[in-house]
């Protein structure tokens, strides 16, 4: 009995927080789900239940599937690119060198600027005739004709992914830097004694120990990037010809330009479910791996 109460105590302690979270997160989702099954006027008045009509319309819409596909590319490319760049950056910033404080500030600085502002600056920089990027490349002799970066969907999307990576670096570097600075130094010393090269140290010590931090960086970044509107919206509004639309920009157009709030609600719910499925799958995968990894150690402890 006492044991059972003891077990219930932690649950009771998190209960208020849990309830609050359920109310704050759950209520909008339930409301959204309800809206997505209704005919909705352009000003958000529910005008009648229509079952799955909104969903049927969404799934029959080629622009939805195109946007979903691009959302996948966008998310994988931005999150992957960010990690690949942030890891070495974090390792460099973790080393002790003259001016490290300044270097850290410079890396973090873009974080202080809103995404929209960054995107506006890039939109100007990428302008075909008056943009700084073309001017720089032409002065450096790399190109001899200005390139219209945002004129076709392919180049525009690549450029947007690069900007996406750029703005995700500060946050990711911070997480990884936190992990690196908490790492035990004696492991490295032992490895050096055993004759491990720099790559060996990275491969067999840094990476495994950094796993929890990399995992959290992946999950959080996927959630942010998947839902990120400003970069694409400011630079191309999903155009030209919907060629850079991801789900969230398409959704924004549907809801606030065309006033199709029911269809938009259906897409948001689909987006929520995709993210939820990803997060649950990923967390399950990670914790199973952790259990596998941890098993032998437990035996040693025993």
């Amino acid at each position, binding site marked *: 009995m006492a044991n059972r109460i003891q077990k219930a105590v932690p649950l009771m302690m998190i209960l208020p927080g849990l309830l609050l979270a359920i109310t704050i997160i759950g209520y909008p989702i339930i409301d959204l789900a309800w809206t997505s099954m209704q005919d909705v*006027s*352009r*000003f*958000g*008045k529910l005008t009648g239940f229509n079952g799955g009509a909104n969903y049927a319309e969404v799934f029959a819409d080629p622009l939805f599937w195109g946007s979903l596909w691009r959302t996948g590319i966008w998310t994988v490319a931005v999150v992957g690119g960010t990690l690949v760049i942030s890891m070495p950056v974090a390792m460099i910033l973790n080393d002790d060198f003259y001016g490290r404080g300044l270097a850290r500030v410079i890396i973090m600085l873009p974080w202080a600027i809103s995404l929209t502002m960054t995107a506006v600056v890039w939109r100007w920089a990428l*302008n*075909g*005739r*008056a943009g700084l990027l073309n001017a720089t490349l032409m002065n450096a002799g790399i190109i001899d004709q200005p390139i*219209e*970066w*945002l*004129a*076709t969907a392919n180049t525009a999307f690549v450029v947007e992914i690069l900007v996406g990576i750029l703005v995700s670096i500060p946050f990711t570097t911070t997480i990884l830097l936190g992990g690196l600075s908490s790492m035990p130094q004696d492991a490295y010393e032992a490895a050096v004694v055993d004759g491990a090269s720099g790559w060996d140290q990275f491969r067999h010590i840094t990476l495994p120990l950094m796993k929890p931090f990399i995992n959290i960086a992946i999950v959080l970044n996927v959630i942010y990037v998947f839902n990120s509107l400003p970069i694409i919206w400011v630079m*191309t*509004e999903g*155009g*030209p*010809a*919907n060629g850079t639309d991801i789900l969230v920009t398409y959704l924004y*157009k549907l*809801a*606030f*330009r*065309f*006033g*199709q*709030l029911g269809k938009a609600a259906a897409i948001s719910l689909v987006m929520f479910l995709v993210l939820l499925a990803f997060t649950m799958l990923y967390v399950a995968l990670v914790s199973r791996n952790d259990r596998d990894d941890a098993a032998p150690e437990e035996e040693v402890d025993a």
Partner: protein
Amino acid sequence: MTHPFRTSTATLALSLGILGFVPAALAETVVDFTVAEYSSKTGPYFQEVANAFQAENPDIRINIEVVPWDTLLQRLTTDVAGGSAPDISIIGTRWLLDFASQGVAEPIDGYLTPEFKDTFIDTFMAPGVIDGKTMGLPVAASARAMMINMDLYDQAGATPPTTWDELYEASKKIAALPETFAFGLQGKEIETDAYFYYALWTHGGDILKPDGTSGLDSPEALEAATLYKKMIDEGLTQPSPTNYTREDVFNLFKQGKVGTIFTFPMLIPQIKAEAPNLKYRIMPFPEGKAKATYGVTDTLMMFADSDAKEAAWKFIEFAYKDEWREKFDMGEGFLPVTKNVAALPHFTEDPDVAGFAAGLPYAKFAPTIANWEEIADVTVRTLQRIYLGQVSPEEGLKAAAAEINKIRGL
């Protein structure tokens, strides 16, 4: 330990605050007015009108909120959905039908006295009338026209064109000049479709056929789109139009790099401020089979669930006094919507303004139909695909017309 002094001061401050605040709040009627931002002058201008009005009517307070055009519709949508709509707002007339059909807009016939109604130019009143009810007042109007860079035309030895064939020939000469583009073609974001309607209308086509179906699959539309595409392919436009918004094209013109653009009167004050040495001329759109220009009006709308309609109307009548209208139209570069202002010398004698106003007798307006924004988006998407060469004009326009007919339920 207590702090008698602090407590009593706090109480005093609190009661003063309450005493000071409550009577004022009770006596005041607040009118929330959402203003679309035409330029940096818009906000200060309306604040000035509001201040002058409040000086005469101390019991009414005008609460002005300036919202940029790009986010205005979204803002009003969420305001209405959230039950916190303003009392009056400036909106694009093309949205009025949606507002009216959903019961969001208040018919104003009951407030509109014959004398007040008579101050407006009838052409501009008409788009605000839906099913016989006046749903809003024209607040700003513009007509579009062609603007050419005279220096470039002289240098190239080209004659200012009056027909599409002449424009094409002149463009060939101008494109031969170094670092110069002959024809500025917009292909990105807001009003990309309008840039095409200019050509569509002057070729004799229309956005909707008489039977209400889309006019994009008409031979006139095909002719217009084919011409634009041909000009892109032959290097007569700036490269990659799909990267150029309206403002980007106008900027090229201000820099003196482009020979011909299609534009609105609001560009004139900008040119005077930013490129005073530019020699330009305003001309009617080149003709194909018809004369046409695009007339655009914005509407001042009252919301049906406003609780300050009387006060709001009082303010509206005040704001339409000649002195204020004159200041507004001059400041923003609009064409006047009221008869008295239209009669002022500036609007009859200035060649720039007159050049734009000349088109008004044959101006076309965007049709007041439901789902207009979505239809415009289909058009823009199709044009972009044609400009990029992803689809042939014929195929693209046909598909777009079918899609638009589907949206219209036809």
